[in-house]
């Protein structure tokens, strides 16, 4: 058993490292992905291109505009002169938001009436729009309380130095709410899935496609030896990529790694059981490498969307939320974010680890069972 496995592994590694495309997949893809998610992909909204349509042009209206400008979130790109111009600037995407202040804004404020201000957003990007709305509300509230404090001081003759309630917000585990801290550990989970499923399913299907599988099947090589020979190399590559991305994450992006490495490696192993199980399962249903590629794609797309990698699971319909429990990526994301950002260990993350182990065992036994029927 061990001797045949040894020769199988030698052969696999020779083939993997001889293929320049394989080397690129193993080394370049993880680096490029982690750089993309570390630098480019961010849900933080800064530098919102904003146009101002100030019809009032009073000290009060200029004060409000200055507060938007001073918040650091909004970049004033131009001042508008007409409604037509307003429509045009949103339509073309030149501005993401327009702050419109009608004539009489200052007078209303001074006269003690409610003054109307309008913020117009580009709703085609609903995520960004709702974040801009949040920022705008915060500025408007600060502006309001400032005015109320002034009025109180004027009417009572005493200054109000303290606010009734001061909300001090602290985001634990990610004090500056950097989306990078959230995404980069997720990239590890996502990449290990892609690499282990794609490579293992392709490696088996390629043998079937070129006919070497049949040649192997007439030798005394056992089914388990073949399956192990085809999965162990990709498990090792999976581990290698976990280390590679972790090193870049910690030393380049300075993402905190608070938890223990043994816990990370244990969870990675459990996770690989299920991803390799999926890869093996795909290989039993496909005759050509293209089919394997397509099947992998159809599995990975929903797996990523329904994992909480980008979109929160809590926002999904209840039925879908139940389905996500079958998604190994979901469990591993909780584990990896817990280990990196919160310093959690096995004593907290064991439910996810048990789930991964069960999923992995189920998928692997299903795939091994099917393997006999399809290749004999």
């Amino acid at each position, binding site marked *: 058993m061990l001797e045949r496995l040894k020769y199988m592994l030698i052969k696999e590694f020779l083939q993997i490292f*001889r293929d320049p495309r394989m080397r690129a997949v193993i080394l370049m893809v993880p680096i490029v992905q982690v750089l993309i998610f570390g630098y480019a992909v961010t849900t933080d909204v800064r530098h919102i291109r904003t146009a101002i349509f100030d019809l009032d042009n009073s000290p009060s209206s200029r004060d409000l505009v200055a507060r938007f400008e001073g918040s650091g979130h909004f970049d004033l790109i131009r001042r508008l002169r007409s409604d037509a111009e307003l429509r045009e600037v949103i339509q073309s995407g030149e501005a993401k938001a327009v702050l419109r202040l009608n004539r009489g804004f200052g007078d209303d404020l001074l006269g003690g009436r409610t003054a109307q201000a309008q913020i117009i957003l580009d709703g085609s990007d609903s995520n960004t729009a709702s974040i801009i709305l949040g920022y705008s509300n915060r500025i408007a509230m600060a502006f309001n309380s400032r005015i109320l404090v002034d009025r109180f001081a004027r009417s009572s003759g005493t200054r109000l130095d303290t606010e009734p309630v001061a909300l001090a917000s602290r985001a634990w585990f990610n004090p500056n709410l950097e989306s990078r801290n959230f995404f980069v550990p997720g990239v590890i989970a996502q990449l290990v899935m892609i690499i282990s499923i794609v490579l293992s399913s392709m490696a088996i299907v390629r043998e079937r496609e070129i006919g*070497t599988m*049949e040649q192997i099947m*007439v030798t005394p090589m056992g089914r388990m030896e073949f399956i192990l020979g085809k999965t162990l190399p990709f498990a090792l590559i999976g581990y290698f990529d976990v280390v590679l991305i972790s090193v870049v994450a910690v030393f380049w992006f300075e993402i905190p790694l608070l938890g223990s490495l043994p816990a990370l490696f244990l969870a990675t192993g459990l996770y690989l059981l299920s991803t390799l199980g999926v890869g093996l399962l795909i290989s039993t249903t496909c005759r050509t490498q293209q089919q394997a590629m397509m099947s992998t794609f159809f599995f990975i797309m929903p797996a990523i969307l329904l994992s909480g990698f980008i979109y929160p699971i809590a926002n999904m319909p209840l039925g879908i939320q139940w389905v996500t429990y079958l998604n190994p990526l979901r469990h591993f994301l909780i584990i990896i974010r817990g280990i990196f950002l919160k310093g959690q260990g096995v004593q907290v993350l064991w439910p996810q680890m048990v789930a991964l182990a069960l999923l992995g065992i189920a998928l692997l036994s299903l795939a091994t069972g099917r393997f006999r029927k399809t290749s004999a």
Partner: protein
Amino acid sequence: MNVVTLKDLERRFGDFVAVKGVSLEVAKGEIFGFLGPNGAGKSTTIRMLCGLLEPSGGSGTVAGFDIRTQREAIKQNIGYMSQKFSLYEDLTVEENIDFYSGIYRIPGAKKAERKAWVLEMAHLQAQRRTRTGQLPGGWKQRLSLGCALLHEPPVLFLDEPTSGVDPMSRRDFWDLIHQLAGGGVTVFVTTHYMEEAEYCDRLGLIYRGELVALGTPTEMKEHRMTEQVLSLSCDRAHDALTVVAALPGVRDAVLFGRDIHLMTADAERIVPILRDAMEQAGFEVRALERITPSLEDVFVSLIEGKDREEGAQREFKG
């Protein structure tokens, strides 16, 4: 001693019967040729013998092991080489050999000796570090054969081994096969090249899943032919063919080079009729003689005979 025995072997795929009631025996050291048109059941049979496919009915043994229950033992005792080159093209000659000798668990001391033997047999000593994908077809063929023989199996299965190989390489290949058989290896080979069939000690013809004929090439040519073959040499052979084929008593007529070969039940009776008909139609008969049929003639006649038989059965039933 028989190395391969089959008794009423059968394989069904759903309603389709790919192999039905095949019984045959192959003796030690024999080269057995398994012939038949594409889709006749050759590969299905060979796959059952190698333990790749389970029979639906009947029984069989290979090297003394049961093809139903001892498939793993069979795999240890056979070499198999298919029509498709099935070594790893991205590995070198040597790496392929090392891989297979590892899989067959050839003991350490013997490994080097077997590797040297394969390299020598395949004339690949100078190419040992060449990627297999860069070798010409005939060389790959020899390497495949070498890898199938690394563990010195007593039985060798070859599934259309020389398709896509040039004639010179094919001849070399058969020289090798004869050497092996001389050393006591039993060879079971499928082919649809008639000239290859001549190299075999004994032949079996399979058609539509059934074994139609069994015997040595000479027996086949002398005894299995129910019809007699005449060779006619004349001018404008192509035009003459239609005249000849239309004659009553001529079962079939085909062009064979510049001559016409025709099959008939009674050659003596047809010769004068044929001469008259040719003269009347204005052809000049240069030679007309009875010849020994080629293997191709025999097989075409057997297969057509089978088709007629089944056609008649269908009409009778209908």
